[in-house]
Each structure stands twice: as structure tokens, then as C-alpha cells.
């Protein structure tokens, strides 16, 4: 083995022999025959070791060739029909495994005890007073600052009459009062425009609930008699809860999801 770069140096300076590449090519192709010849002629322990090594090499070669072949011809695997055949009436329904049903029942019992309920938006950003209520200055010198105006969308009932303007502490502007909400049924994926019956709970503060302020995450009660839902006893359901999913003061409409 050359220990230095003198071969390369010579090649750089003087180039190759004229028949170098030809000779190289022919020598390489002869190598296969010579190898075979050696494998035939070898005897003894040397032969045993050589054959063992050669066998391992051949197995490896065969594997790589097969892999390449598979890559070239693509098989259609999706001819096989999927498992889990169900009749037509079960196709659009997700089956629940029995174990899951039991664990769900237990979880529901625990929640009932704890008083927590599942709503589509469990956490919403709490709105501070400075955001929701704007200070309105009154008085001869505009010094008094006890009046507040609501800056978010609100709902007032049907029979709402303002208190005498001199005494009302919270002003709810008519432009921000809404009566209807666009409610989506989560399973049917259909949206209906339903009249609001009342504000059940505003997550930011109980004050907002009494005022009727509707922000994102508020639970409102809507009139669902249009949908035609019925209880087991045959009575028509006409009110259901829905949770607001958008910021109504930015959009100009109230979008909510029905809580089934």
C-alpha cells in the first residue's frame, strides 16, 4: 500500500499510460472469473472460511436485489376490503365499545357530584370592567362619574323599560341590543336563527349576567320550538341552552352552539 501521495503526484505530472483505462476495465471484468476459479480450487480450512464469508455476502446481495425489484413494481394493496363490516344502519354512527360506555357513565356521575358541566368552550378570557363598561361623566361640571355604558352586545327582555334617565346607573344602548342568535346544532351541522329567551350565565361576572351582557362563552337560552324536538312524554321542547362562540361586538351577530 503506498504510504504517501507519490502515485497521485506522478499521475498529475505525467498523466496515465495510454492503455491504462482499457487495462483497468478488462482486469475488473476478469476479476469475476478469477474469483470463481479461486473458490473452486481452494481446499482446507482456508476454503471453509472463504465459503462461509462468500455465502453471507451472496445472501445480502440477493436481499438488496429483491428490494430494488419491489420498489420498481408497485403492488395494489388496497384491493383488500377493510375489516369491520357493519350494516347500512350503523354506517354513519360511531360505535362505542362497551368498556368505554361504562367508564363514561362513571365519569358523568362524578361530574354531577362535582357540579361541573361540559360546554364547548370551557375556558374564555375573563373581561374586566374597564373593557365592558365605559364611564359616562355627568353633572354641571362633568365631574360626576357614577354612570356606566355597556360597550358589549346585550339582551334585554321583551317587557324592558328604562329606568328614569336621571337614576339609571347602567346604560345599554339600543344599537347593541340583539334578539336573535344564529344557533348551530352540533350533530346535524345545520344553523338556525332562533330568538333568545334570556342570558343564563356570563362566565366573567354575575353582574354581567344580571345586565344581560353577551360575550364569547356566555350561555344563553334560545327558543327551539322551530326545530320540533319532543320529550319522551310527548311534550314539545321549546327552550334549550346554547353557548356563544364569537365576539358579537366585533361581528354584529351572535353565533352560538346548541348544548345537547
Amino acid at each position, binding site marked *: 500500500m503506498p504510504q504517501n501521495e507519490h502515485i497521485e503526484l506522478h499521475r498529475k505530472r505525467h498523466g496515465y499510460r495510454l492503455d491504462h483505462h482499457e487495462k483497468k476495465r478488462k482486469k475488473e471484468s476478469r476479476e469475476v472469473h478469477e474469483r470463481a476459479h479461486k473458490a473452486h480450487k481452494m481446499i482446507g480450512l482456508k476454503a471453509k472460511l472463504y465459503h462461509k464469508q462468500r455465502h453471507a455476502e451472496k445472501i445480502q446481495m440477493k436481499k438488496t436485489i429483491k428490494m430494488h425489484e419491489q420498489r420498481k413494481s408497485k403492488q395494489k394493496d388496497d384491493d383488500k376490503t377493510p375489516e369491520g363490516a*357493519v350494516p347500512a344502519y350503523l354506517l354513519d354512527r360511531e360505535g362505542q365499545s362497551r368498556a368505554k360506555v361504562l367508564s363514561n357513565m362513571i365519569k358523568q356521575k362524578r361530574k354531577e357530584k362535582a357540579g361541573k358541566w361540559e360546554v364547548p368552550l370551557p375556558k374564555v378570557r375573563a373581561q374586566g370592567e374597564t373593557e365592558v363598561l365605559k364611564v359616562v361623566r355627568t353633572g354641571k361640571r362633568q365631574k360626576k362619574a357614577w354612570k356606566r355604558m355597556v360597550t358589549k352586545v346585550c339582551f334585554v327582555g321583551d317587557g324592558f323599560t328604562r329606568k328614569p334617565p336621571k337614576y339609571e346607573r347602567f346604560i345599554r344602548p339600543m344599537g347593541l341590543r340583539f334578539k336573535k342568535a344564529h344557533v348551530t346544532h352540533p350533530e346535524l351541522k345545520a344553523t338556525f336563527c332562533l330568538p333568545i329567551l334570556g342570558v343564563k350565565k356570563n362566565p366573567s361576572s354575575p353582574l354581567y349576567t344580571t345586565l344581560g351582557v353577551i360575550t364569547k362563552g356566555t350561555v344563553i337560552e334560545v327558543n327551539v320550538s322551530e326545530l320540533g324536538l319532543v320529550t319522551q*312524554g310527548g311534550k314539545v321542547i321549546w327552550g334549550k341552552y346554547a353557548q356563544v362562540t364569537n365576539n358579537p361586538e366585533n361581528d354584529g351577530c351572535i353565533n352560538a352552539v346548541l348544548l345537547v
Partner: protein
Amino acid sequence: MSAADVERILIQFQDEAGEALGSPFDVPLDITPDKLQLVCNALLQKEEPVPLLFFVRDAEVVQSLGACVRTLELETEQVVPVVYQPQAVFRVRAVARCTSSLQGHTEAVISVAFSPTGKYLASGSGDTTVRFWDLSTETPHHTARGHTHWVLSIAWSPDGKKLASGCKNSQIFLWDPVTGQQLGKTLTGHTKWITWLCWEPLHLNPECRSLVSSSKDGTIRIWDVVLGRCEKILTGHTQSVTCVKWGGDGLLYTSSQDRSVKVWRAKDGALCRTLVGHAHWVNTLALSTDYVLRTGAFEPASATINPQDLSGSLEEIKQKALERYNKVRGSNPETLVSGSDDFTLFLWNPAEEKKPVARMTGHQALINEVLFSPDTRLLASASFDKSIKIWNGITGKYLASLRGHVSSVYQVAWSSDSHLLVSGSSDSTLKVWDVKTGKLVMDLPGHADEVFAVDWSPDGQRVASGGKDKCLRIWRR
């Protein structure tokens, strides 16, 4: 008044439609139903006496007329109207044992159907084959291969000579039960899976040429099976069509997941009416004349031990089918019941009105299947709340609840005399119920997993059931 003096009462026999039979009759107050039957049969002047049930104002006369009148507190001075109901001449016995468990399918058995005469049995499965079974030896007869996905629905033509099967790849194949070969061309055209198949009734066309199919893509197609092409496409539903039925008057009824039921004219494909009222998906439809349209010209009363094919020329068959249809239908138009995911059923008179006749509430989970009894007087609804409810088929009044299953009830099937009901459930058992008493007659365990499909043969001898455990079981007396 001595004890020998028996009180007498004037009664007027009336049939179910309210027409009077003969003139008012003077009978003793303690007359029993058998004697009433003799009298009524004499008045009806039929060749053979027909078994009858008697009702005074919807209360059945069980022991004697007197007991009934006393409980209802009717005035004995006036003429009491007594309604007579002819029962089936034959009586089907409850099935009690599993005679064979037929293996062969390599995936769950999804649909099972007996041919209209009860001679052949076909089953469709998730392994994409439809298998025909020989009923006399209870062994496999033919395996019909051709589908490329699960065979979701199968339907026999009313003359029993063809079977149509629809698969999840939206193709429909037609098979010959005798040879097991495909007849005609594959019917393609739908874009999503086939949910239901229904043939044109025999009395409208004895050649059994037209087939209607409904699919998840929201369209309904009417096919000509001889030419192998689609004749009409009915669009209108906005979501998957779950069920389609071809009525005996040439009207098509379809139910869909868009909460509506639509009525179409089969001749030109025009939409007649949209019946709205449900609050969630409408899963299933049942027509009062379903059973008679399914059996066509075959009369269950004339069944023999070895079921035979229908004989006679096309005209004769058509005539027989028409007679049977008119007899069952009577003078009222067909009524339709729809069962939905909103836990209620609606009873409609689709040929005439848009408004429902009755709304039947009471179930606590979605309703999977609704079926009229063969004599159209009763209605059974199977629900995922583990119960089956029986309703009056004419007024929609609630009659009874059949409880016993421990898990959702998937399918039900009536026996041809309307006395017995068999139900298959996801708890892997079948139960046979007597609807008159509302009690369980027979519990049939044996399946290893959920039972997906149940059918009672029209000659009343056998019940076939198939399920997730890949085997088809045949039950006999």
C-alpha cells in the same frame, strides 16, 4: 226475575271500516266469543269458517259479551256495535331451536332475506359475497362473487326469480338464485354507497323489471334491470337517503337524513309531497302494505312443507297479487310510518295530506327499524333503548312495550299470521314475542356476537339470522 231469565242485548256486527253486517241481532248477554263467531260466520256466508276476534269500542271480548259491556258500562237498552276482525286462517308456531349454524362467510353477515315463497335464502356479507343457501338440507348452495366491497342491502324480486344486491362501492348486481350467476349488467351510477333497494310491486308489473335504489349521495335511481340502465334519477334530498319504498299505488316514498320524507310519482319521477316534522335523521320507513308487496302472489295460507316456486302465467300471477293487495289494503289509502333519531315515530297518510296523522313518542333512544304487521293492524318499532314498542297500526296509539333485551335492538321480523315477532339485538340473542299478550315466548341465544339481520320466512317455518360472528343461523320449531 228468576235466575233462568237471561238478559238479552241487541248487537250490530260491524267490520273494521264501520260498515254494518246484517241487521241488529238479539243475543243473550252471556254469549261467548265462540258462539259470536258462529253467528258472524253464518252472516258472512263464507265457504269455510274464518277465525274472528270481536271488539266492543276497542275492548276485546274475551270471556263473554256481558263482562265487556259491564266494564264499559254501556247501556243495554241501545244497540251495541260489535266490530269483528278476521284473523289469519293459519297459525304460525314459534321457533324454538337452532337447526343449523351455517358457516361460509369470512366476514360479518350484514343482510339476510328469504325469497317471497320461502324457497330460497340469500345473505350478503362484509366479505363482498352473496351466498345462496339450500333450505331443505341447510347447506350452502351458491356463492355469488362480483362485488368489490361490503354487500349492504339485498332485495328479492316479488316473483322470487331475481335477487338484487347493493354494495358499499355503489354498485348493484343481479343474481339468479337457481344458478348463482349474475344476470344482466352491473348497475353503476351512484357515487356513494347504496342504502336500500326496492322492487316494483308485482301487481303493477309482473315481469319485475324495475328496481329503485337509494344512496348516501342523496339521489334515488330507478333502474330497468333487463336493459341494465338507469331510467330516472330523483334528486331533492340534501343528505343521505336512508330508505326507499315502492308503494302499491305507484308512489315512491323516501326518507333521508335531512329530516324529511318525500313522496314521488314513480311514472314520471315528479315530487308530490314533502313530509316534514322530524327533528333529526329519519332512519326507516314502513308501509302498511309492505308484507303483501313483498310476498306478491304467494299466499302464506297455502304454504306447503316444501316451498314451491310461483306457478302460472304472468297474467295469473298479476291477478293474484292484485287481489291480495286489494284485500289487505281495503278501502283506505296506504299509510306510512317513519322512525327517526329524534326518538319518535310519525304516522302519515302520504297520498292525501302533508300533516302527520299521529306522533308516537315514548322511546328513549333512536329508532332503528319500524315494521307493520302483515295484517296492517299493528306496528312494531325497534330501538336502541333495548325495547320494542307495539302500536296500533291504524290510529298510532301505544299498546305495549316488549322488554327483555339487554342492549340495542337492531331488527325485527313478523310472522305471516301477525301473532309473533322475532327481534335480533346487539346483545347476540334473538327473542320471539307474542304480541297479543306482550310476553316473551322464546329466548334464542346462540350467536357469538351482535345479530345484524333477522328474517322470518313467509311460509312461517323458519327464521334466519346473521351477525358479526360470521355465521348464519336457521331456527325452526
